[in-house]
């Protein structure tokens, strides 16, 4: 076979100057793209902070963070954030109590007990559950869960904490299950064998070796899921009502921080009023809590990481 081409020549011919320029430009372009998300975060923080400062010029900061009465529309307007925080916390605690054992149980099953076939079927289903739009969960809460709860527990109102709390829990189960399962299945097999080798049963091995070794990942999954529950908006706007109150009552209507923000931004609140500025103060408080949860999650991952 005679060779009527020369690869080196072809390479030389194809090597144009323009490709060098692109090669040099690419990092700059990528840097600009990366900057967008950081700039957006800085801009959001700036607006939250500056507008909140305006709010605190009108309403004393001390009243805001110590007050338990949130009545922005009344003649004698009150801006006590604890009414909204207590609404958010009721939802979050119910969701966490509901989701943590179920999510962890699912993770234990998938990581330690299920066969490969079952895991291959169940994991994608869990991920689908994570992709359901939250507005659909909201309707699920008010049209399905609330009626069931009211039929078995007559004190439950149409708008309440327990139904959206449970549904927010359902929403965060896949997150807990999936992240905890990842943490548990990355515990080396050799470690389980060490435990079986001493006559430990599967359940003993799971609780005394695998879960302690995976605890940082499991705790981080809890914290991230709780952070998600704090920020959850649609489900609580639809099913929890819009009546801020400072209490521990889970059967009657309440309002969360997120639901308040939705209510104001979708209403006809005039620009420049106290209510308008209160949005930013509530937004900042919300941001504070999710930021705190993320910090806790990072701290847990570092503090409890078991080296293996």
């Amino acid at each position, binding site marked *: 076979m005679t060779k009527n081409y020369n690869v080196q020549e072809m390479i030389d011919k194809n090597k144009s100057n323009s490709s060098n320029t692109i090669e040099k430009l690419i990092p700059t372009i990528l840097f600009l793209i990366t900057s967008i998300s950081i700039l957006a975060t800085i801009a959001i923080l700036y607006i939250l902070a500056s507008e909140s400062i305006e709010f605190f010029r009108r309403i004393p900061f001390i009243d805001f963070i110590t007050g338990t009465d949130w009545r922005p529309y009344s003649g004698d307007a009150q801006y006590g954030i604890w009414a909204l925080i207590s609404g958010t916390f009721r939802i979050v605690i119910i969701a966490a109590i509901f989701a943590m054992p179920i999510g962890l149980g699912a993770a234990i099953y998938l990581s330690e007990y299920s066969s490969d076939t079952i895991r291959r079927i169940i994991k994608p289903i869990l991920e689908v559950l994570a992709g359901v739009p939250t507005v659909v969960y909201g309707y699920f809460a008010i049209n399905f869960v609330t009626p069931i709860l009211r039929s078995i527990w007559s004190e439950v109102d149409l708008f309440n904490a327990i139904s959206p709390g449970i549904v927010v829990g359902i929403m965060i189960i896949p997150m807990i299950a999936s992240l905890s399962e990842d943490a548990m299945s990355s515990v080396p097999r050799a470690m389980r064998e060490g435990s079986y080798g*001493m006559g430990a049963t599967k359940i003993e091995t799971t609780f005394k070796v695998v879960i302690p070794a995976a605890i940082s990942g499991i705790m981080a999954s809890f914290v991230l899921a709780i952070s998600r529950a704090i920020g959850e908006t649609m489900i609580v706007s639809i099913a929890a009502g819009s009546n801020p109150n400072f209490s521990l009552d889970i059967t009657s209507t309440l309002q969360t921080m997120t639901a308040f923000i939705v209510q104001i931004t979708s209403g006809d609140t005039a620009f420049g009023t106290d209510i308008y500025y209160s949005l930013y103060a509530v937004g900042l408080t919300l941001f504070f809590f999710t930021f705190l949860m993320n910090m806790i999650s990072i701290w847990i991952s570092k503090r409890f990481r078991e*080296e293996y």
Partner: protein
Amino acid sequence: MTPDTKIETKNIKKQNIVSSTDAGTLSNDNRKNVFSSKNFNLWYGDNHALQDINLDFKENDISAIIGPSGCGKSTFVKSLNRMVELVPIVRTEGQIIYKDRDIFEKSFTKEELRTKVGMVFQKPNPFPKSIYDNVAYGPRVHGIKKKKILDEVVESSLRDAAIWDELKDRLHENAYGLSGGQQQRVCIARALAIEPDVILMDEPTSALDPISTIKVEDLMKELKKNYSIIVVTHNMQQAARVSDTTAFFYEGYVVEHDDTNVIFENPNDKRTEDYVSGRFG
């Protein structure tokens, strides 16, 4: 078991050794078999990995199993404590008798078997816990909770594993901070803590440096006073140095099983001779 009875059993075992030191060969040995496999076969799916294995292991011997990679030696030793069944596609046939009981009997649970037959693995696999919690793990799993007893067990196990002096001031440090050799001896201590009869070792020094290897080998010679040891090794010098008997596995069969000096100096089978003289494997 109270500390007193333990000392008694140890003494009995020691007498056994004294009475059997002159029994050089397999045949005229009146010690009991600790393990004996009868026509044992094992398949991984369609792969017939162990074929008609008939082997006897004596009490208080160090029995070595050698052979090239993939010959089934690890599979066999993992069959002895049924650890091999963690692989879902495994199927077995035949018997393995542990002290008069078939280990595959329904009434003999895996957990009970593994409580009597401890194991040390190829790679040190301590738990990511403190040294103390690692060694106390076995007793705790089996319901021993008294702190005083656990303290004693931890100390005596670490002493038996010849690592107490090195670690006595570091008991509450994470075992992962130790060197590989120390980790492996902690794993040996962990296995000793439940006072098994037999210790299976699956290439226990293959991940260790030469000095740690020698320490583990010395430890094995010490331990055989009180325990029966079955050790898989790819290292023939190790088998020659530490073991009383050696079984040579090849492609899923036992080619030859005899006293170690016979296997290494005067083997019957050509393949054994080729393997121990380094011509293949």
